[in-house]
């Protein structure tokens, strides 16, 4: 309710300030009618001057209001209560808050509680009125100052444009803040994890068994290698599936297919890219896994329903459109002259593709391949559902494995207590994952860019 009132007041202030600036600029316009800026810029500038200070004051209240009211409650309580420690004190403060809001509390409130509640209620009303008055006051002051600056030659447009420009810069800083946030949060939590487990044990350990480790004594039980091996194996299988299919699809669609076929097939293949990964995971778990297990038992191989093979094949299907559309772009960038030259010398189409086009496009395709690998490494839901979650070093792809991403999910879901190595390890794993994908991406983007420059 309060926030609704505040929002309405702000809107009123905004409209009023805009109107004030607009009409003022019309007044000061000389007889010849030449203002430097059009009235709507004057209006906008006055509105900015009025609303921004008011918003700042409200923001300060949002940030520090709770601290202030808590301090006030503390001041109202008798000294012996104030001396209580954390949870009990919090409980009493909560009770006082509830009395103040009028919800009532369980049990009979102690006299000091109801007194404090009463005082808090008054404090709240007063402080709310005070904050509103202060915001309105500064808003009005800003409005007045900005309005008095308006003259015919006043460059209101330039100032408004400067504000807009700062806003745009602020938008682009969000991207940097995100990266900083990722790196900082991963690093700080990972460092806390490494205070429990030494980095050497983590990066070179071959046993993954976090459950039974007691704090500090878990040497060798947080070994990354089994997880890394699982990730690697699934990625290799995925690339074995997606690279030939994706590349041949791109080759056929760019070199052989008629435009009509291409226009139908390309979007349909790209549908695969839009399907949520959880759907692939379910598909792997319910259809592909049992199917592979049945094939395995008829051939005489022991393939589990949830295994590296299942997850890898389905992930490969997911990556097909990624490879095919990237390679499609790259193949089409190969200069036509190279292709025509080869055909003119009597090479068949497939010879042209294999000996001229693909070698020319190779750097780009390698870049696409690396990008695809980085996607495979970071993919989560397919492996959570279909890889079987069994963190052991095994060579057989028909056996269940576990990956870095699966382990992050397992260690962190439903656990918000960031004090034990069991949950902190997720951040160390996240850091590993982030670095691996970062390196792959940087290398891939570099190669792709170099390739593009070569033919432009």
């Amino acid at each position, binding site marked *: 309710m309060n926030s609704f009132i505040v929002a309405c007041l702000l809107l009123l202030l905004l409209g009023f300030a805009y109107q004030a600036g607009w009409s003022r600029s019309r007044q000061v316009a000389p007889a010849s009618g030449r203002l430097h800026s059009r009235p709507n810029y004057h209006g906008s500038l006055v509105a900015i001057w009025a609303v921004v200070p008011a918003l700042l004051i409200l923001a300060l209240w949002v940030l520090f209001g709770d601290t202030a009211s808590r301090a006030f409650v503390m001041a109202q309580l008798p000294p012996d209560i104030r001396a209580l420690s954390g949870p009990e004190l919090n409980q009493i403060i909560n009770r006082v808050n509830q009395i103040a809001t009028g919800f009532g509390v369980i049990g009979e409130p102690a006299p000091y509680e109801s007194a404090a509640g009463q005082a808090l209620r008054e404090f709240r009303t007063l402080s709310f009125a005070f904050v509103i008055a202060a915001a309105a006051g500064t808003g009005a002051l800003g409005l007045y100052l900005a309005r008095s600056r308006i003259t015919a030659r006043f460059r209101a447009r330039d100032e408004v444009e400067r504000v807009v420009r700062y806003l745009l810069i602020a938008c682009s800083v969000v991207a940097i803040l995100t990266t900083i946030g990722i790196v900082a949060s991963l690093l700080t939590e990972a460092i806390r994890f490494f205070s429990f487990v030494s980095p050497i044990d983590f990066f070179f350990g071959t046993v993954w068994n976090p459950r039974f480790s007691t704090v500090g004594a878990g040497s060798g039980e947080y070994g990354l290698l089994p997880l890394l091996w699982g990730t690697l194996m699934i990625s290799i299988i995925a690339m074995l599936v997606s690279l030939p299919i994706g590349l041949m699809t791109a080759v056929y669609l760019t070199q052989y297919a008629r435009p009509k076929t291409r226009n139908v097939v390309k979007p349909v293949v790209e549908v695969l890219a839009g399907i949520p990964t*959880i759907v692939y995971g379910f598909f792997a778990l319910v259809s592909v896994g049992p199917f592979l297990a049945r094939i395995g038992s008829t051939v005489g191989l022991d393939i589990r329903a949830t295994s590296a093979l299942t997850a890898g094949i389905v992930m490969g299907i997911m990556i097909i459109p990624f490879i095919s559309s990237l390679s499609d772009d790259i193949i089409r960038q190969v200069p036509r002259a190279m292709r025509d030259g080869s055909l003119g010398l009597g090479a068949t189409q497939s010879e042209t593709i294999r000996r001229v086009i693909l070698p020319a496009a190779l750097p780009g395709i390698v870049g696409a391949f690396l990008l695809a690998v980085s996607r495979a490494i970071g993919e989560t839901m397919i492996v959570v559902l279909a890889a079987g979650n069994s963190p052991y070093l095994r060579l057989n792809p028909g056996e269940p494995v576990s990956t870095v991403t699966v382990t992050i999910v397992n260690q962190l879901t439903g656990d918000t207590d960031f004090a034990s190595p069991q949950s902190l390890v997720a951040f160390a794993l996240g850091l590993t994952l982030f670095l691996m994908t970062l390196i792959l991406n940087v290398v891939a983007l570099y190669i792709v860019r170099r390739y593009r420059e070569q033919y432009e």
Partner: protein
Amino acid sequence: MANTLSPVAPTAPAPSETLTKIRSGLARRHARERRFRAYGIAAICAALGAVVILFSMILMKGVPAFTQAKLTLDVFFDPAIIKVDPKPVRAPDQSAAAYERARLDWERQVTLVNWNRILEAAVRAAAPDIEVDTRQALSIVETSERFVLRDRFVADPGLLGQTVKMDLLASANADNWLKGNIDRSLPDTQQQLSAPARALADRLKEDGTIRFAFASQIFTNVDSRSAPASAGLAGALMGSLYMMLVVIVLAVPLGVGTAIYLEEFAPKNRFTDLIEVNINNLAAVPSIVFGLLGAAVFINYFHLPLSAPLVGGLVLTLMTLPTIIIATRSSLRAVSPSLRQAALGLGASRMQMVFHHVLPVTYPGILTATIIGVAQALGETAPLLLIGMNAFVAAVPATPLDQSTALPVQIYLWQGNENRNFFEPRTSAAIIVLLGLMIALNALAIYLRTRLERRT
């Protein structure tokens, strides 16, 4: 020309050794060409086959789940079982609070009535000749239906002593049995329903008491653990809707602002290079890393509530931001320079040029970028698991700060349910809903794009 051809002509009639060599080589080369082409076609068939298999499997599994077994029973509100006081009426001198208390007391009384006995009597009355005990009779009706009876009675206490025809949900096990999801030849020990209950279900199906009707509760009910047949997606849909709103409100202005700054205003310096590299890398960071960021920053540092759509929306915003930025930039880049030069030449400032002339032309592109980003966010699961959105929530969230799940997370939760026979189709149905939403979003994008492009 004739000169060069003439020496060849005499040798042509007599096939020399080189010529046969060439001919046989040519045949081999053409065979290789055909083989290569066949590989291409095979690759395309594999990719298209994957699309077809995936969709047909989901549809085949999921479509039956949209109908569900329902019983039409004559329910007798037996005064011998429902022994409650008459519903309190507010006396003229009674305070609102006192009346509320009396009403709640009465509702508590009603809840304590043994509604199962009334259900049991209704089931027995429908097939009086089949011998079943209480458990068996009740096992074919979903456990949540007793609350349906209670609510009906609370709404209309005049039903006491009357018989009403009511549509009630059959239990998940009965639904499985009747749909044939369970192998009917399995021995008793492996069946979820006892033999008399199965006979009862078959009998009721035969005489039309049980029929298959559209399972509207998939859309109207929230998730349920104790009564799987009544579990629905309402909470998850609402949670996803809130997250989409947060994403649209935050990601679109931020993304478009960043794109405008980078493309139109940013000077070429280190800072803008840094932002660009950043955005390209963020676009390829695995989604689960954004979940780690959310867990560490939003939950652990800012103490935002767990499982809240607001936090989910924030994480997804950061994740989709690069998509929107990159797509908006490419549509800004596609605006012809003549438009900019014309605007600048007529005396517009750069800000006016961008906002009045360039940006309106890119609306279709920005719109498509937004919808692609939102669709991507809608299907994302992994980061949501890390911020607690996989908690079991049996309520529709009223605000973005309430506990909630999301559509893909609900799919994840359902696929893990122990009652596989029932939840595999149910999960597929949820996937159909999710894919339907995504297809609708993409269709909307295409429709709006063509409309807007025609106008400009």
